[in-house]
């Protein structure tokens, strides 16, 4: 025990230690959630091409039935979250504030939780291609928040190979305990998912990375480890952004993903632990994804906890059911570090929504924090997990010198973890500047004629 204390868990360099706030929900078992009167299902809940509807207005659908098919490789299908009637196919409100193509579904009153069974895919008898196809058909995307189609990640490009599969259970975002609960309650599903993933990627070993603030999860998974599987559990230091792919790879394997490269460039595939559990749960039944685990928490929520929530449930309904205070002032989808603040409660949760955090007026970030000029204190330099110089980048952004930012200061490597903004004593919205700068550069590149 004493030696355990002395021995430091592996981690990456730099990073920050924001307060955790996980106590409120981490001990609450996952509970089911009722169906909302109307479900809103955007067709683009993932990165890539929106899916194409295969149902028509007025059609009755069963829970788990295909609503929209994938449009190409970088796309996933959409399944019905509840049995009910397709009210309308049109435009639905989205988190960005714009109206996007989507489907309105009205569940039957008292609709059952029963899900349509599909064609099962067995690990033992399937080829990697079949598993990858099955994962796409199940509509699975990264449930950690990125919503990147998982099967795309698993498809190893020509000439490359994967030797290690990392299951990301770090969950470094404050407030969120989704993955924590999943690891406590769905260990068999996770193990099953790992089997599928190992087969699909051809990796020879799998490591589950867990931050040291979830010792019970590590113990639980270790207890479930089957002897035949090259799977181990690695506890890593509590630090934000430990859950970022690159940081986790560095912490566990001491490998650095090359600038502009992907994990596969260092023979690694990283999959979120909840995604893994979902693969292990859905594929044996040939089902599609229709609900996910979401942490509902924050000072503005009375019934804090983790819930199975059907995809497409409107935010307002969730908040009402979870007993939100009337004076909530800010609501975030995802964690407070990388999540998005919502402007309207009429938007639905999507596959990528890992948490809902609601703040009341007084707890929210003080409205009138004064922005001072950069005083070169270096706090951001000490925080940036990629060893960038956010101070210099911020100054360059302020003077709109975007090209120097990209050419001399590796702007494009920034994955917008927000550590710099968090620590900045001058309250400069650094990561916000970087998002705009990257956008400007991408737009310019798109406009530039191809050579």
């Amino acid at each position, binding site marked *: 025990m004493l030696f355990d204390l002395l021995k430091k868990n592996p981690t990456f360099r730099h990073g920050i230690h924001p307060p955790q706030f996980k106590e409120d929900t981490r001990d609450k078992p996952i509970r089911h959630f009722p169906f909302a009167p109307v479900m809103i299902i955007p067709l683009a809940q993932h990165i890539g091409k929106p899916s194409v509807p295969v149902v028509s207005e007025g059609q009755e659908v069963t829970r788990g039935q295909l609503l929209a098919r994938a449009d190409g490789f970088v796309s996933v299908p959409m399944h019905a979250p509840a049995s009910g009637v397709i009210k309308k196919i049109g435009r639905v409100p989205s988190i960005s504030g714009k109206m996007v193509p989507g489907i309105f579904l009205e569940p039957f009153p008292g609709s059952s939780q029963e899900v349509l069974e599909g064609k099962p895919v067995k690990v033992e008898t399937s080829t990697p291609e079949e598993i990858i196809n099955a994962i796409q058909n199940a509509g699975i995307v990264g449930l950690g928040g990125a919503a990147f189609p998982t099967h795309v990640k698993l498809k190893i490009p020509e000439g490359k190979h994967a030797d290690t599969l990392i299951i990301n259970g770090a969950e470094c975002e404050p407030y969120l305990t989704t993955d924590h609960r999943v690891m406590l309650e769905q260990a068999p599903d996770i193990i099953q998912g790992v089997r599928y993933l190992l087969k699909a990627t051809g990796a020879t070993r799998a490591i589950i990375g867990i931050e040291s603030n979830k010792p019970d999860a590590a113990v639980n998974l270790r207890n479930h480890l089957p002897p035949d599987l090259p799977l181990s559990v690695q506890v890593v230091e509590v630090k934000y952004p430990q859950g970022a792919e690159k940081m986790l790879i560095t912490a566990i394997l001491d490998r*650095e993903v*090359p600038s502009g490269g992907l994990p596969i460039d260092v023979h690694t595939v990283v999959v979120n632990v909840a995604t893994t559990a979902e693969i292990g749960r859905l594929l044996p039944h040939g089902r599609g994804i229709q609900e996910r685990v979401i942490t509902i928490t924050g000072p503005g929520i009375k019934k804090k906890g983790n819930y199975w929530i059907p995809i497409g449930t409107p935010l307002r309904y969730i908040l009402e059911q979870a007993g939100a205070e009337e004076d909530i002032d800010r609501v975030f989808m995802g964690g407070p570090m990388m999540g998005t603040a919502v402007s309207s409660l009429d938007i639905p949760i999507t596959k990528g929504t890992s948490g809902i955090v609601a703040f009341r007026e007084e707890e*929210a970030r003080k409205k009138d924090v004064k922005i001072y*000029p950069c005083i070169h*204190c270096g706090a951001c*330099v000490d925080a940036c997990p990629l060893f960038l110089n956010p101070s210099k980048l911020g100054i360059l952004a302020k003077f709109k010198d975007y090209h120097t930012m990209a050419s001399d200061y590796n702007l494009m490597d920034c994955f917008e973890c927000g550590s710099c903004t968090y*620590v900045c004593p001058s*309250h400069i919205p650094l990561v916000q500047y970087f998002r705009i700068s990257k956008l400007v550069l991408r737009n310019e590149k798109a406009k530039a004629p191809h050579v």
Partner: protein
Amino acid sequence: MFKKTLHIGTSPHIIGGSSTDQIMRNVVFALLPVAAFAVYTFGLSALLLLITALASCLLTEYFLNRWIGKSSPLSDWSVTITGLLYGLTLPPHLPLWMVFVGGVIAVALGKFIFGGLGYNVFNPALVGRAFIQAAFPVAITTWMAPFLPDRFSHIPGSTLTLPFLKPVYDITSGATPLSLMKFEHHTTDTYNLLMGMTSGSTGETSALLILLGGLYLIARKMMNWRIPVALLGTVYLISTVLHWSNPDIYPGGLFMLFSGGLMLGAVFMATDMVASPITPLGATVYGIIIGIMIYVIRVWGGLPEGVMYAILFGNAVSPHIDNFIRPRVYGTGKQWSKS
């Protein structure tokens, strides 16, 4: 049932750490004991000097910023630091009108002209001090003996010199430990240096209080500890080695550390965040460069003290340090180490 409007903003939605005005305020707190000891050592003239230095800096900042329409320029406390530091580097009975001139220069030329807080490429207090040093070389190298018996009842005539006139001295003058060393090869006792029993600039005499202030700021993570450590370490190392090689010519390490403005400069001046390098390694290199410069000027140069010039030089070099010493960005350079 819910409020109609929600506040939006982009992530991250929480912020931590201390804010700039907090940091600045704490530096002021750390300086207050030093200032109090200065008043105790040199009496009324030091008190008047510090008040004048502060007033000139604050007023200049206030009016210049009002002139170009910037709002509440004093709320960030940075100019308070400038004023205090500037006052603490001056000889205690410098004529107040000179103090005022230097304060105006410090803020106008050292800070405002570059765009105010965050853009000053040199430490403003030192710009003001260097200006005064060049403009009034006699007045700024005339020192007052510490702990004069009538220091709380008598204001030295030189302090109250009318503007544009030469000061007339009517009190016991003293010699700084460094000029004693340089011109008379007389070394002052380390204990006296540490406790501030010597003559010198208003705020530089008590090395102990300065160190305590620095430790406070380092403990609160409001100061880059690498700069003072590298700087003091360099000076100590060079002087110890050379002292060992020839004690007659080269003064000892402890004497070098605790005499003159080295402590004040290393702890409060060289660490001016805006004008120093941003990376940890850069800060170390910067400290070493300043340390070498201080030693060279003190021992081989014509002046007895070189902290001010060395730090200004360090400020001038720091853009280059930032340019050349950059951390290796993640995923560049070396590829992943093992398979």
